[in-house]
């Protein structure tokens, strides 16, 4: 770990200003990912700008029926919030399936979205990694990649975004509110994280110095009967091999609306738009769900050791939809 300077920002404008003027600056919120990576010498910020008091830590209902989540809201508080639990249960379930009590008590909403993708080679500075050192090569493609991406990866990177929370937010069309030197902008959650392409070092579309100030959830009645299913190697404290956030609305024997997002399969939360398309207007049945899953997963390009994820994702999508339909 290398020496760094520390400053606390008391509002978002000050945070953006402090960070923006220094290329080596980074925002510090809960620190549950950044500090780990600093200890590993992967992240080497020269200045940490503490933003835990710079943005809202409140969850507010919006006039249009949506909800605004302050960037500083802790994961544990968000998971326990009565409005979230009632209107967006998959989000609460996703949060509770992630990490541990201790980490959730520290981790923030904005920080959760900003956690780096995972791969053992990214975390080991003695190994090649295009994300850590662009151009050095990808050690995972022909190495240990059992837990890595099957969708949307590139020659340069096969890492996966580990956030559970982001998968539920992707399913619900959440919008990330960002403040930068030039003002504020809104980024749909599904466009917030990037696929690796030729620039795997960029996990998100944020520019240096841009700060997440809030995440907005739209009014979404379908989300009240949503579910998050996380499949992992051990019962707790493990990243998803595959996860599914889903909600479905069946009316008059026909799928009226459906939301599906996948976690653990790509460099970003994977909104399963093709599966959704295949389902809308059709009669809900196991075979239909399987066809829809296949429609999404036919794009999968698994690596030698993670092909099981395709079957696992298919089975998990089908089962989650069946469980949801049974509840209706």
């Amino acid at each position: 770990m290398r020496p760094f300077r520390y400053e606390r920002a008391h509002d978002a404008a000050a945070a953006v200003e402090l960070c923006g003027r220094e290329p080596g600056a980074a925002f510090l919120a809960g620190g549950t990912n950044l500090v780990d990576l600093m200890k590993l010498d992967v992240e080497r910020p020269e200045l940490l700008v503490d933003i835990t008091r710079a943005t809202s830590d409140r969850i507010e209902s919006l006039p249009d029926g949506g909800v605004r989540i302050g960037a500083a809201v802790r994961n544990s508080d968000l998971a326990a919030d009565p409005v979230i639990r009632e209107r967006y249960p998959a989000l609460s379930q996703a949060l509770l399936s992630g990490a541990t009590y201790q980490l959730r008590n520290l981790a923030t909403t904005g920080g959760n979205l900003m956690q780096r993708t995972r791969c053992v080679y990214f975390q080991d500075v003695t190994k090649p990694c295009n994300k850590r050192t662009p151009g050095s090569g990808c050690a995972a493609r022909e190495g240990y990649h059992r837990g890595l991406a099957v969708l949307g990866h590139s020659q340069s990177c096969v890492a996966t975004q580990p956030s559970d929370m982001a998968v539920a937010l992707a399913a619900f069309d959440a919008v990330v509110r960002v403040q930068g030197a030039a003002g504020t902008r809104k980024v749909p959650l599904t466009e917030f994280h990037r696929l690796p392409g030729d620039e795997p070092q960029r996990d998100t579309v944020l520019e240096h110095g841009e700060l997440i100030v809030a995440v907005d959830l739209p009014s979404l009645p379908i989300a009240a009967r949503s579910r998050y299913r996380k499949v992992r190697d051990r019962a707790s404290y493990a990243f998803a091999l595959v996860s599914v956030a889903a909600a479905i609305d069946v009316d008059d024997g026909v799928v009226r609306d459906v939301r599906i997002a996948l976690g653990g399969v790509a460099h970003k939360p994977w909104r399963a738009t093709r599966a959704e398309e295949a389902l809308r207007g059709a009669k809900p049945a196991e075979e239909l769900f399987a066809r829809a899953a296949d429609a999404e997963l036919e794009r999968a390009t698994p690596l030698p050791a993670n092909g099981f994820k395709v079957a696992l994702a298919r089975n998990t999508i089908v089962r989650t939809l069946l469980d949801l339909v049974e509840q209706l």
Partner: protein
Amino acid sequence: MSTAQPVVGAPVDRVDGPLKVTGAARYAYEHPVRDVAYAVGVLSTIAKGRIVAVDVSAARALDGVLGVLWHENAPRLQTDDAELQVLQSDAVAFCGQFVAVVVAATPQIARHAAALVEVRYVQEPHDVVLSADRSDLDVPPGEDVDSDDGDVEAGRAQASVIVDRTYTTPAEHNNPIEAHATIAIWEGVDRLTLYDSNQGSHNIRDDVADAFGLEGEQVRVISPYVGGAFGSKLFTHAHVVLTAMAARAVQRPVKLELTRRQMFSLVGYRTPTIQRVNLAADDDGRLTAIEHHVVLQVSMLKDLTEDLAARPTRMMYAGPNRRTSHRVARLDLPPPTIMRAPGEAQGSFALESAMDELAIECGIDPVELRIRNEPGTDPDSGLPFSSRGLVECLKQGAERFGWQPRDVAPHGRLEGRWLVGTGVAASAYPAGRGQATATIRAAGGGRYHVQIDASDIGTGAWTVLTQIAADALEVGIDDVTLEIGDSALPRARAAGGSQGTASWGTAIVHATRKLREENASEATADAGDNPYTDQYAMYAHGAQFVEVRVDADTREVRVPRMVGVFAVGRVLNAKTTRSQLLGGMTWGLSMALLEESVLDARYGDCVNDDLAEYHVAVNADVAEIDVGWIDEDDPYVNPMGAKGVGEIGIVGTAAAVANAVHHATGVRVRDLPITLDKLLRAD
């Protein structure tokens, strides 16, 4: 003198419990030492080759850096143990080996400086892949690595059923909670004190004295409390010598604590195994021939032959025809070490899985199959067993678990979306004992001081030895003051091989007898050799029953309940014994489903080297574990009649889980761990 009720056997709370929960018990890194400096190691990033340049200029330029050592300026050592020859040459023998060490005024500066040390290498091709097909597999040193009894081919010729399978177990890392740590304090050049986390202070003392050309008495190793070890702290590892070397170089006390990642290359691991088991049986399931052949790995640096995984196969079941062997590959990898039930843990997975496969082939209940093959005497030595409670454990376990009714055929039950199955395995672990010396001193007023360099690595030795002493002296436990974990105390074998309590307790009982006989105020006595060693075969036994539930869609495996019934002689403390057996079974569950150190052969490096990627069972993985023991009177093992309980709990558990997974799914996984991808792939 207080009116003493016997306390041996009672569920006495840990005498060190309050110290531990209040944080007052000091672990190695926590001892306050004036003027201490901090050391951080620099590790090799290649698996084989030579160091051609070490640039320490940036590290030395940092304020607070007191010194940097590497092979060109490190003091010379005298040890013959290649693992302990730290910074003695430019040769790199494995990835993650010490190539330099930085000492600084604070741990932060030391860590920063260590990252600034630049080491250039000339890399040589490395050889790191274990395989049963290697042409260079060697007979490991040591006695009894192979056995051949009766006529295996003839036995197989008369069989009606043959099971011939290969089972593999991966490398696993011990991962105690307390990281390995050492503080070294020199007084002059010939007196060294170490605060160190280990399983036996005398082991460390001897090795460190040897390395620095000192007499044993010139080195004192203090280790009263140890936060887990599981074998990784039994032998001296390089960081201990390195810390002493660093302290001598900067002429200040020095502290070093390994990081979790460094523990994956520097303090050993369980060797992977490739095991071929061939069981032949007649129509009734009686074994007519048994073969078990094991391939292991060791480091090029040194041999280690503790993991004789086929050894238990020589004594578990009856049958006149039996052959076992062990072969090793020497690889450019870190030296393995022992890990809880070394050999037995891996070997029992293979043998007890094969017994399950045989039961299915024969159409015989697996409990019944084991009972039918119960030997009258030890098939290996020909000696009678001092006690053998295996059949009783199987019967009581089956009863407690509700084993019957059960279909022998797999894939029988679906409850909701869970495939439900049950499995059983049997276990054995040697009940040995070793060297130990204890001193007891009457302190007046019916109080006694007991001194012995025993080691409590979380097992409960502080408590159980106090109980043994109290009963032997016929006083209450509050009248006994115990001192352990210090090489200045009378020498005793380390905590390992489930022999600690048997050895140390025997020495305490003998010292008490001597105190009485001589009517003295102080007495010292040895445990001595067990006079029955040549007359009886001595083992603890156990039977493990497991229910698994496998998600029909995702193939996630859950273990809602396990029952273990053990034959461990006299139980000295019902509470700490239960904890040990629970811990062992939890380890077995973890071995079955989770643990695997992943080698990237391109680098010769373990790549999942932290606790997020290397999975050990967490609380949510462990549901109901029902632990029990049978009444077993064994007057031969030691004066307490007690057998060690530290390792028997893990033996067999992994096979019981694997057998239950097969029963639930119809899929036989022969390579641990049983992760869901192996079950999905098999569909």
